[in-house]
């Protein structure tokens, strides 16, 4: 019933009525929704107004909602989505981009690739905003070489909890602590409205890609360590069904002009990512099961040659294969899914095989199991990456016994000196989080100076008692 209908009956304002701007929000995994007042500010002043007039449930910035769990939602709060704060400029002389926080990497790539530049870090989807990229301090296939997104930001503008505008930079001693608390700070230090970051020069919009199969996990991991030194970009897909832990490593570089045929050279910087399909709106639960997963994993492994070098692929095919299918997160059905992503130090490589085995044992099928190597961490206290191995698995939430299995894995990860990625988390305990992010207190101190009245909060912050 709309407010209007009820008003015909009575003029009293019921606290149960819905208003036009309320929306049920979830993360990409489509679990645990909560209702919020969604506003779309058009200017810095709009953002300031929203913060100054925040209700008791506070304010949170949201990007494109590509975090899997509850990071970008906050029940009862004002959630600021900023699709119209999306302008950006490229300065080719300094190889930097200055972008509004609502600009997506998709928009930015479309703008800068034809000019011979590429973003310093891209996740497995280009449908993320600059704000979300900084707040989660995202990593890409080049982390072992280039680090995470925050390491390439030279300055950012943020509205703090009092509504004041702050310009933060990693090199300014007066505010570098605030800068690093914002990088990886999951929107809890303020609303980022603009950022300047370095971009990298490229000669073509194409990738030169080498593929190698590994018939078991040890072989795969050894080949990955070897690939570290040779490639800027590298990642492995693992067949989560196979007990051996076989997989496929794809590594690559931006293709240089001399790697291209003369036909391709003339269109080297043409960038045209295409959406191939949209997943159907309604998919019954249970479509993703052990059988379909086995078939998928088998086909994926077979599709890749034992080893091949110098294939030329598009940027979209190499970095963002899933963006070809819109709303693919619906294939998991109404119960939704989660992604379990952890990092452990190099010395705890055995945790990878153990995690795969335990999830196989409860019959948690994973389409997408991705193994990557991280380089060194940056100074951000809540940033996820640190030197070592990171494994990410997509798992439907309906699997029986999943909660206990993942709690057990948490223990193992924590005991090994590792941790979980907040942008993917939707279920760890506050104790697990506190134990594995030992610099939490340091971050909280900076955060309370930036948000003295506790305006910024999220469902994730409430769940983990941040």
């Amino acid at each position, binding site marked *: 019933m709309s407010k209007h209908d009820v008003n015909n009956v009575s003029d009293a304002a019921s*606290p*149960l009525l*819905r208003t036009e701007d*309320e929306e*049920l929000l979830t993360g990409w*995994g489509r*679990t*645990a*929704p*909560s*209702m*919020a007042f969604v506003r779309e500010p058009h200017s810095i002043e709009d953002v300031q107004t929203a913060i100054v007039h925040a209700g*008791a*449930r506070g304010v949170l910035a949201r990007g494109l909602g590509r975090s899997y*769990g*509850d990071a970008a939602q*906050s*029940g*009862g*709060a004002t959630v600021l989505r900023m699709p119209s704060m999306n302008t950006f400029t490229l300065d080719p002389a300094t190889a930097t981009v200055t972008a509004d926080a609502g600009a997506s990497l998709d928009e930015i790539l479309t703008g800068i690739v034809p000019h011979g530049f590429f973003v310093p870090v891209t996740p497995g989807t280009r449908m993320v905003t600059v704000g979300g990229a900084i707040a989660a301090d995202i990593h890409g296939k080049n982390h072992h070489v280039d680090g995470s997104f925050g390491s390439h930001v030279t300055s950012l503008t943020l509205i703090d909890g009092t509504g004041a505008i702050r310009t933060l930079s990693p090199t300014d001693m007066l505010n570098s602590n605030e800068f690093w608390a914002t990088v990886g700070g999951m929107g809890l230090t303020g609303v980022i409205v603009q950022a300047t970051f370095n971009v990298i020069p490229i000669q073509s919009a194409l990738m030169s890609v080498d593929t190698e199969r590994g018939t078991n996990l040890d072989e795969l991991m050894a080949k990955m360590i070897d690939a570290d030194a040779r490639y800027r970009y590298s990642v492995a897909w693992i067949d989560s069904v196979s007990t051996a832990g076989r997989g496929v490593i794809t590594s690559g570089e931006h293709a240089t002009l001399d790697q291209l045929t003369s036909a391709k050279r003339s269109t080297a910087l043409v960038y045209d990512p295409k959406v191939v399909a949209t997943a159907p709106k309604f998919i019954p639960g249970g479509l993703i099961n052990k059988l379909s997963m086995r078939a998928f994993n088998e086909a994926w492994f077979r599709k890749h040659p034992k080893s091949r070098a110098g294939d030329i692929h598009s940027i979209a095919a190499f970095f963002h294969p899933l963006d070809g299918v819109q709303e693919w997160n619906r294939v998991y059905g109404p119960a*939704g899914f*989660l992604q379990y992503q952890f990092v452990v130090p190099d010395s705890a490589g055995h945790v990878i095989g153990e995690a795969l085995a335990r999830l196989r044992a409860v019959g948690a099928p994973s389409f997408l199991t991705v193994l990557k190597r991280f380089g060194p961490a940056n100074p951000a206290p809540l940033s996820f990456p640190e030197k070592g191995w990171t494994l990410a698995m997509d798992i439907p*939430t309906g699997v029986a016994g*999943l*909660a*206990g299995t*993942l*709690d057990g894995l948490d223990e193992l990860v924590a005991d090994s000196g590792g941790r979980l990625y907040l942008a993917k988390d*939707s*279920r760890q*305990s*506050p104790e697990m989080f506190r134990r594995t992010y030992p610099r939490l207190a340091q971050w909280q101190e900076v955060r309370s100076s930036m948000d003295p009245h506790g305006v910024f909060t999220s*469902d994730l912050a*409430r*769940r983990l008692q941040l």
Partner: protein
Amino acid sequence: MIDALGDPQSVLVLGGSSEIALATVTALPRNRINRVVLAGRASAGLTSAVEELTKSGIKGVVTAEFDATNTASHERIIDEIFDACDIDIVILAFGMLGDQMEFESDPNLAVQIATTNYTGAVSSGLHVARRLRQQGHGSLVVISSVAGDRARRSNYVYGSTKAGLDAFAQGLGDALQGSGAHVMVVRPGMVRTRMSAGLPEAPMTTDAPDVAKAIIVGLRKGKHTIYAPGNLRYLMGVVKTVPRPIFRKLPS
């Protein structure tokens, strides 16, 4: 916050010493629970409920003073509880059964259970709904009864309070539909608790842990109405169609 796997962090029980509610709290996945508020009238039963839940390993169990008939206090009490932290699951469990024969000889007693079971639930239920609505998430579990499905000679005062409660809770669920907050109505048959102690057993009588299990499954599935045991739905479907002259003569 409830997490992606449906595990709650906080629970509020109105009628904090109810055996059905305590069985439910005990059966909930507890790895994430850090707050359980047992709201009820001060009693030895309430105190020992805190001790028992705590002893069983549940964290953060506390009590709050709550009397269903003191409706003037509901707003303050419920606001205080929700101000302290978000509540993922509220179980509205208080209720009295009473004795039909006594009600007929002393209608004041009937008024008392009507006030408790119906008026008290309308008052506290609306305050809870307002707070769930404000926090944008959470479930309200209302313990109704099959006795509300059809009035019986032997307990029609109780039955009518549950019929009223049930209709209220259904409507409240509709009011909250799509708001992130959710209402689930539970219609148990006879359950072996102190409330039913001494009464002759009806068909399909269950124990509190069985009802608890049904509640937890229902919550996971986002159900609006459940029977406990589930098969009672069909039996009550038939019972509701029996003509009154015949129904009156059925053994109670």
